[in-house]
């Protein structure tokens, strides 16, 4: 069955450093992959989408890579700030009921940026 794995252990880094989060998947080939941020008590917030034919995508301090051979995406936050502390979720597109496209989600990785 389709499976998504994200680092289950919380990531603690020092302010100003680069945070790197990993998303690995097995048993399928998504057309695109997305990263979201979720703060406690709130819904996920969309950050970036990268398609299968794209190797890398950037948005301000964020960078996402997508390696369809390794079946892995890396999510980088450069010059990290305490405000970046949150849980980051990886989601991949798949086919759901009725052949509707749907997202399959990882458990998320908790990031804490220490001042």
């Amino acid at each position, binding site marked *: 069955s389709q499976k998504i794995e994200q680092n289950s252990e919380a990531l603690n880094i020092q302010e100003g450093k680069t945070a790197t989060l990993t998303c690995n998947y097995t048993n399928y080939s998504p057309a695109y992959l997305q990263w979201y941020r979720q703060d406690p*008590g*709130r819904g*996920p917030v969309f950050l970036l989408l990268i398609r299968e034919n794209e190797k890398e995508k950037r948005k301000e301090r964020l960078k996402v890579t997508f390696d369809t051979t390794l079946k892995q995406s890396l999510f980088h936050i450069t010059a990290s700030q305490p405000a970046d502390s949150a849980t980051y979720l990886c989601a991949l597109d798949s086919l*759901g009921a009725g052949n509707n496209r*749907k*997202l399959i989600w990882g458990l998320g990785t908790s990031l804490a940026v220490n001042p």
Partner: protein
Amino acid sequence: SAVISQKPSRDICQRGTSLTIQCQVDSQVTMMFWYRQQPGQSLTLIATANQGSEATYESGFVIDKFPISRPNLTFSTLTVSNLSPEDSSIYLCSAGDNEQFFGPGTRLTVL
């Protein structure tokens, strides 16, 4: 992007009752979805809310337990019926074709 509101934000319900959650989008959208997020588990899609037709339910979710309405392109409701403590969870509404925009969620506790 879309701004999504949900209500109620939280509720405590008795076993055997039902709770209806409302989701309002600030613009017309084609796709609306309902998710469940339980502690220690990933976001799980319950169903896709289709405008003008019956919702499409994912494996493990049935209409009798989770009836959904979608009367127009900006509004949907999810009812969680015949509540049991196992239904205690956060329920999230989202909208969007590729990237999805989420509401703040409804925290349901069943006693």
